[in-house]
């Protein structure tokens, strides 16, 4: 048994897959460096991230699988679920050895990949839905999020296309980075500290009309509701409580 550790990046993961083939490892486990704990009966192999090797794996996948399944692999990687790398490895090995492997839903790895990818997609859709921008004094539409999975890379295109004529910034507080659109392109950014936002208070940071529009949105939310049809269970299923913190209409 060998533990293959990689730096946590996407290319790092693909490089690890490359090594499995090149070094003909049979009993392996791929995991992030950060999660590695020395074990008595397993060796360690440190994977060096290598763009060329990573791209060879990716191009190979594109030849053996439809694009949607390749995207699913990427989504599973973004899930950051411990152990997902090993499921992905099994899936990739199957894809390289069997035709139309992505359709073998009775195989546990195939099923797991499609299920996890679905969860990540759902989170991505939630973020596309639940981001609430607030207009700052410097004319930037700003939103904070704490998604279950690392979905910012998946939502970038959506927001770039939609809000092409306004500056915006979406910040993932859990992973401590954000994406910022400057009217030309989208860049990744990190704040030195997020305290600024929290200590200065809303009124000094945000545009004057911001409060009015938040109130109007809350009013609207209350008044489209039909009391006679109240269905709290259903409401909670669609808008789980953990997302309320950032939803203007659910706020106090």
């Amino acid at each position: 048994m060998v533990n293959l550790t990689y730096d946590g990046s996407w290319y790092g993961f693909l490089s690890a897959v490359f090594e499995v083939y090149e070094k003909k490892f049979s009993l392996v486990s791929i995991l992030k460096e950060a999660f590695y704990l020395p074990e008595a009966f397993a060796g360690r192999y440190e994977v060096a991230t290598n763009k060329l090797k990573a791209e060879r794996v990716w191009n190979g996948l594109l030849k053996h699988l439809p694009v949607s399944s390749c995207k699913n692999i990427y989504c599973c990687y973004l899930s950051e679920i411990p152990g997902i790398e090993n499921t992905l490895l099994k899936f990739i090995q199957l894809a390289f050895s069997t035709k139309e492997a992505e359709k073998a839903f009775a195989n546990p790895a195939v099923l797991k990949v499609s299920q996890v990818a679905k969860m990540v997609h759902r989170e991505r859709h939630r973020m596309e839905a639940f981001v609430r921008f607030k207009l700052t004094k410097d004319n930037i539409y700003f939103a904070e999020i704490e998604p279950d999975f690392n979905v910012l890379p998946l939502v970038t295109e959506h927001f770039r296309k939609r809000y092409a004529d306004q500056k915006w910034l979406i910040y993932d507080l859990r992973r401590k980075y954000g994406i910022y659109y400057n009217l030309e392109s989208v860049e990744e950014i990190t704040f030195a500290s997020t305290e600024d936002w929290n200590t200065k208070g809303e009124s000094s940071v945000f545009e004057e009309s911001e409060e009015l529009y938040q109130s109007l949105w809350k009013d609207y939310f209350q008044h489209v509701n039909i009391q006679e049809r109240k269905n709290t269970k259903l409401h909670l299923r669609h808008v789980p409580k953990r997302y309320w913190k950032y939803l203007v209409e659910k706020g106090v």
Partner: protein
Amino acid sequence: MSERIREKLQILADAAKYDVSCSSSGSNRKNHNKGLGDTGNGICHTYTEDGRCVSLLKILLTNFCIYDCAYCVTRKSNDIQRTAFTVQEVVDLTINFYRRNYIEGLFLSSGIFKNADYTMERLVRVAKKLRTEHKFNGYIHLKSIPGASDELMHEAGLYADRLSVNIEIPTEQGLKLLAPDKDRKDMIQPMNYLKEEIIQNREEKKLFKKAPLFAPAGQSTQMIIGASRETDKDIMFTANSFYRNFNLKRVYYSGYVPISNDSRLPGLSSAVPTIRENRLYQTDWLLRFYGFKVQEIVNNDHPNLDLDIDPKLGWALRNLHEFPLDINKADLHLILRVPGIGLQSAHKIVEARRFQRLNWEHLKKIGVALNRARYFITCNSSQFERKNYSESQIKQFILASSQSKHLKSITPQLSLF
């Protein structure tokens, strides 16, 4: 100023909430002009406490109305506060909500103020302003006011993604009783006009890529359920004819919310028929995606849907001679007819069985609701669940295994089968 706009929004959102349509999908307007917004699959940005999707800013332009339809809160004789937005107010609200990622766009309807054209002209002006002055590419759904001129309808189609006329009452007699000054013909006429225009536009689009978009998300309508003693057969036959004759994209079913003590209507204390509404949506899906014909589900022998079981199960129980199906051999269109198997599962089954013969465990993992499906199928297992049970036995078993499920009210977005 801000207090006044808040009050208007409260009144005019309240009055618009009975229109259940909230779809913002079906259009594909791209943001080519570096403007604001685009449309695609439609996103539900939040859900109300009644569990319904909020995707559009859904408001009336005004709740003044010259008509007196008994089932409507906005009716002339109702003693309520009346108000109206200006065109600019609606535009500002839409843009500012959209920029904050609250909504996918605007759904603008209206009480009928003065006359049809006067009202329609204002709705069109809002849409035009959004599209031309603000380069707004988000979703716009306009209500087409029955009786408005063809020219205005045409203009509306140039700016809106979707247009709708609500038929509201499923039968002609019902409409006569509840809205005597309304004529069903006036409602059908714009549907027909728009259908022709939409078809013509799609043809032009094939020839010239540059031909303008015309209502790319098509038309929809809504029927109120349970206000006029109609049967489910009346409702579904009407819906079916709309789908066929006017190429409607969607028909919505809206359980009547009691709003009046008018003796022609269910009393104020009556419950909203949400389960019936859900059964109608399920039937609608069976027609549109599962290959069922309307008369298979509702007919003179079965004019009303069962409330305790879904319509597909109801059909299967009445047609036990068609079962059991061998899940490893049967055609897709037959698998789609099995209770407990949804669209996705049906497709997955057909894919997966090419690699290996499927057993109960596989079916469960794929997402089949075995508590219903197992009485209607066989698979790669010697364990036959179906031992020539009768219709009523199967129904009993299934109801017992999903006890609380059918008692809850379920809305259409939820797990349908």
